[in-house]
């Protein structure tokens, strides 16, 4: 099989994930886009492992580890999202701005 097929597919999936992370407003949809990006990396790892014929099979072992870390990440992320939704009644990324920098006009309003 030509190596360009899995590599190009992984690149396109990664770009779709980048678009999703930047364009979505709901936190859970952002997490789903992160999953897409992680899977693109997994595809790359598997393809290059098969291509290089590594005796340690580092690519496939790392793929298994990435899947584990993705599971941990989605569990923790959803717990945080549920906590935020419970306390602030929103699941929108741009609705949680308590720690963000305020514009100067806003700070002047607050000062008044």
């Amino acid at each position, binding site marked *: *099989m*030509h*190596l*360009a*097929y*899995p*590599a*190009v*597919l992984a*690149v*396109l*999936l*990664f*770009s*779709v*994930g*980048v*678009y*999703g992370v*930047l*364009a*979505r*407003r*709901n936190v*859970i*949809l952002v997490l*789903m886009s992160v*999953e*897409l990006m992680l*899977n693109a990396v*997994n*595809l790359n790892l*598997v*393809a290059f492992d*098969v*291509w*290089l014929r590594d005796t*340690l*099979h580092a690519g*496939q*072992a790392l*793929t*298994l*580890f990435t*899947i*584990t*870390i993705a*599971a*941990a*990440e*989605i*569990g*923790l992320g*959803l*717990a945080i*999202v*549920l906590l935020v*939704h*419970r306390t602030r009644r929103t*699941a929108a990324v741009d609705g949680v701005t308590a720690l963000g920098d305020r514009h100067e006009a806003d700070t002047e309003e607050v000062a008044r």
Partner: protein
Amino acid sequence: MSTLLAAAGSLEPAARSYLSPTGQEIVFLLVGVLVLGAAVVSVTTRQLVHAALWLVVALGGLAVEFLLLTAEFVAWVQVLVYLGSVIVLVLFGLMLTRAPIGRSPDADSGNRPAALAVGAASAATLVTLVVDAFRSSWIDLGGAAGTTRLTGEYLFSHWVLPFEALSVLLLAALVGAIVLSRTGDGRTKPRAGKLRTGPTKQKER
């Protein structure tokens, strides 16, 4: 060295060409188009639950791609972990945050054009780079590289320490998730880890 030889095309010049793809390449391309289409729908649809279900299609297609790349065990782990647990978690998350059924107009934020530009730019750059770099590289799919037996052997002979460390990390992350998602403020229910100071409780220990 063998990859260099293969790249020169001297071994099987007739079989290695874009114009005469093998059966595996055709299946890979078709499933790849399906995966990509499902991913695009999943990040653009305005129906939140549909986005999760299209993600199922994309991740399941990727499992098929792993099978085509002779990584059997990784493919089944993908099916078990992603389709079995991650998607279920995402669906539960959508339901618990009261995701609206039907179209939600605020699924996309205001910086959608910028996101489209960044995504298209990264896709163009990386596709150019990857195609230019691996234009003459071929994967030899001859020997099965990812059977469960082989995976078990290398995972538990060379990768034992990272494996165990990762299992501890997963345990810690899930315990953290449980602690984060507990309800109650600690007054109505006894908190885990909080010592009781009553004399009867002390005696029990």
